[in-house]
């Protein structure tokens, strides 16, 4: 016995959720094959380079997680993976800052793109926090020194009671669980917003250009 096709029940929560999800990004804009002429510029490569670097950061971080935070001190392969992690972070920040400069001088928050700008800025600030907790997770004299110096700064903003930079276990968990989840979520949200609203046109662009 075959089931007869039914019309979508608008009262069903699955239908409402499906409609909501499918209308987040206009049809065909999630993975477009054509873009406006003003998008052919190297400046847009740096946003994608940031995402590519983030994938390498996460991938190398996952390998480091297998061996533990002290693994890179005793293994040449661990040292190599740690260096990949470090240099992918360097490229991640360099590409992200160049992307930020480009977007700032384009005033890329125009045309209801304010939330796109804000999610990018929060992702940038969260990335800085993630980098700092990474420095604190090196399990060497450098991380001890940074923790001892950083505690006064954290205490001065009143966060020392629940965010103790002298606690390497807490800093490691923030570095490998909480902050990467936040950055991953923000990155996805940011990209979805870019696809939802499209790339910002140049300031002097006329309608239809």
């Amino acid at each position, binding site marked *: 016995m075959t089931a007869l096709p039914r019309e979508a029940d608008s009262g069903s929560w699955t239908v409402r959720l499906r409609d909501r999800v499918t209308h987040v990004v206009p049809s065909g804009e999630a993975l477009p094959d054509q873009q406006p*002429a003003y998008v*052919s510029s190297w*400046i847009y490569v740096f946003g994608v380079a940031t995402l590519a670097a983030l994938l390498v950061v996460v991938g190398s971080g996952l390998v480091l997680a297998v061996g533990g935070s002290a693994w890179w001190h005793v293994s040449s392969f661990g040292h190599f993976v740690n260096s990949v992690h470090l240099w992918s972070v360097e490229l991640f920040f360099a590409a992200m800052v160049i992307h930020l400069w*480009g977007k700032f001088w384009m005033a890329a928050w125009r045309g209801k793109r304010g939330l796109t700008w804000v999610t990018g800025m929060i992702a940038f600030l969260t990335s800085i926090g993630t980098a700092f907790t990474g420095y604190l997770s090196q399990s060497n004299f450098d991380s001890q020194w940074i923790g001892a110096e950083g505690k006064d700064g954290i205490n001065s903003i009143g966060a020392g009671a629940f965010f103790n930079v002298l606690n390497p276990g807490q800093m490691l968990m923030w570095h490998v669980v909480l902050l990467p989840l936040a950055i991953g979520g923000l990155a996805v949200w940011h990209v979805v917003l870019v696809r939802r609203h499209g790339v910002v046109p140049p300031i002097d662009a006329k309608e239809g250009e």
Partner: protein
Amino acid sequence: MPATSSAVLAVTSTGHYLHWGVVSVSLTNLVIISIMVVVFVLALVVPFQRRGGGPR
């Protein structure tokens, strides 16, 4: 070189810093920032070759 000597060397080498009034920056960071500015300017002025999927 024994491990202890290299550790002492690593701690005592402070690198080169440049100072302009209240601004203090390490030479390494200044070089990296300068390279990023150069890459940014190049990204603005170097033509981008399109392949397929022409403009709409």
